[in-house]
């Protein structure tokens, strides 16, 4: 096994994605899925990437993880720095050493993410056998331990079950166990609870938070659910048309959003704790990725838009406070200062 720690700088940021660009080259044209996404993640921290379908949040995760379908997907620019090492520059052989070992990922649909023809125990043990060179017996012991950790009852017996024999929530636990098997420092969770019922969602989010805390792991939570984000995130990056339009600590962004899109999103969701009046609507539709509007991509749907927003120059990332940026010419108006 090659030593993957070569070149890693322990003082560098855990994960720093810098100006990432991803495009899909299809027959219908080039879809620009990610257009300069930048963010960072520290150990023990939870960063939420919030956005609607088609905003590029999952593609960003796949590019960081190195599992982009290529073709048609191509990373066309930017850097993904893990402790100072640019993963995009590594050969596939070296990249593989990072996957699961350093950065792991869980998906929305556990049933299609797990292999239906192998037992859960086999799939878990395989990780230890391939990556750690363990014997079958030792790997099995580790697999049972892991299922115990994610609180699957009777782990010893359930290890011989196939994925379809588990309920939705239990399958999600199996996938979490698999992702955490090799003690990664970064976990990317792509809509981990979207397919689950609320009571099960609460169980899974609680489990994730606990495991993250025990391991001081960095968590990137990709979701469209502003409720879940408010519950668990430390910082939020809001994505629109392949760009991060606002980045802020969780308390600031909910109290005073700086980008019109964030503000409109927050005003458009019904509340559980009081019955509101008519919901605020964001008019129109998210743009097609093959035809992103010039200037600020949000301008056709924005109530603050003026001529400057329609120019070719997109708004720069304005620094509002120490850890806050927003890409809008009218931040002051949106903030109401």
């Amino acid at each position: 096994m090659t030593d993957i720690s070569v070149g890693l700088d322990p003082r560098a940021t855990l994960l720093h994605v810098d100006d990432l660009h991803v495009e899909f080259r299809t027959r219908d044209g080039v879809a620009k899925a990610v257009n300069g996404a930048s963010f960072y993640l520290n150990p023990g921290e939870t960063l939420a990437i919030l956005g609607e379908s088609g905003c590029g949040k999952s593609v960003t995760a796949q590019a960081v993880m190195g599992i982009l379908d290529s073709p048609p997907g191509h990373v066309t620019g930017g850097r993904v720095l893990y402790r100072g090492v640019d993963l995009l520059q590594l050969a596939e052989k070296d990249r593989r050493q990072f996957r699961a070992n350093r950065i792991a990922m869980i998906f929305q649909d556990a049933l299609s993410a797990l292999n239906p023809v192998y037992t859960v125990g086999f799939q878990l043990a395989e990780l230890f056998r391939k990556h750690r060179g363990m014997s079958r017996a030792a790997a099995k012991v580790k697999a049972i331990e892991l299922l115990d950790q994610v609180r699957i009852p009777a782990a010893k017996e359930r290890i011989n079950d196939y994925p379809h024999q588990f309920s939705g929530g239990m399958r999600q636990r199996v996938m979490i166990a698999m992702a955490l098997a090799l003690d990664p420092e970064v976990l990317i969770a792509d809509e981990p609870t979207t397919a689950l019922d609320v009571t099960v969602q609460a169980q899974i989010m609680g489990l994730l938070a606990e495991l993250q805390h025990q391991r001081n792991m960095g968590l990137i939570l990709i979701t469209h659910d502003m409720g879940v984000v408010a519950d668990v995130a430390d910082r939020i990056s809001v994505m629109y048309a392949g760009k991060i339009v606002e980045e802020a600590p969780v308390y600031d962004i909910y109290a005073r959003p700086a980008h019109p899109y964030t503000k409109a999103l927050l005003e458009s969701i019904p509340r559980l704790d009081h019955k509101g009046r008519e919901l605020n609507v964001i008019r129109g539709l998210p743009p097609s990725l093959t035809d992103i509007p010039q200037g600020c991509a949000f301008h056709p749907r924005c109530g603050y838009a003026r001529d400057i927003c329609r120019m070719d120059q997109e708004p720069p990332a304005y620094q509002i406070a120490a850890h806050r940026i927003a890409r809008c010419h009218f931040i002051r108006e949106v903030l109401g200062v």
Partner: protein
Amino acid sequence: MSDVSDLVLDARGLVKHFPITQGIVFKSKIGAVRAVDGVDLQLRRGETLGIVGESGCGKSTLAKLLVGLEKPTSGEITVRGENMVRLSGPALRRARRNIQMVMQDPYTSLNPRMTVGDIIGEPYAIHPDAVPRSGRERAVQELLDLVGLNPDHINRYPHQFSGGQRQRIGIARALALRPEIIVCDEPVSALDVSIQAQVINLLERLQRELGLSYIFIAHDLSVVRHISDRVAVMYLGKIVETGHHKAIYEQPTHPYTQALLSAVPVPDPRLRGHRDHIVLEGDVPSPANPPSGCRFRTRCWKAQPYCADHEPLLQVRQRAPHPSACHYAEIRDVLHRY
């Protein structure tokens, strides 16, 4: 609103069991999935009744029973003084006009080979006396306009529309026969948040303008609160608690309602750590083999041996001002503890 003459729909003792069979040639019934197991509900004119519950609780089967897509195993559904369950043939067809449905998935519920005009106009083909042939195109265009779509797009196909627009097409189709009641089964759960609000607002506007009554089925408790006047909470085929939206959300008495409400994330980080979190253990039991007595007892922190033997009825109790199916029902405000 309590006037009996306002009642547009009255369902009593609705039961739907799906048989589980064994064998191919000599089929024998070895059990039943008790999807809906004794549900009563009333709907008044201009009112929205929200039905919430987790997957597998029977809420979609209930919707199908109400619109007549499934025959109930037993029970009655009275609409305009007629028991829909007993009707058949032309009489049933006529009665169904009055109660229409909006489906969850705007991608699979519209036939991709039909134009929007044909989709929305299909109810007129089934009920030729609703609108004379010559007036149908006009009627469809009016419906498109009513739901906020361009009437000139009558000859387009569903794939030319976005998800939110397709849901508007589904709503227009449900409105074609001028029903009094619309059953909406998860009408916004497949839509993005920014589009959800558009469809919710549309449903509310149509209700005001046309005096519609809605049965609004959803798993998203925030959406249900927003749109509903009254709410019923379902668990394993039964309604466990029902009442005015304020009563259910602010004074829930059934442990399941309390757990459900406490599990919903609220988009306000200031409430973090200040809310009552009830984490339920385990999953919903199989409706083919529900627990004896109270069906929630296997996951309930209040369960006593008594709950296993005695099924709690949905009724007003000493400490439960609105109907609640729990022997130990008691108000616990899980949303406002901060």
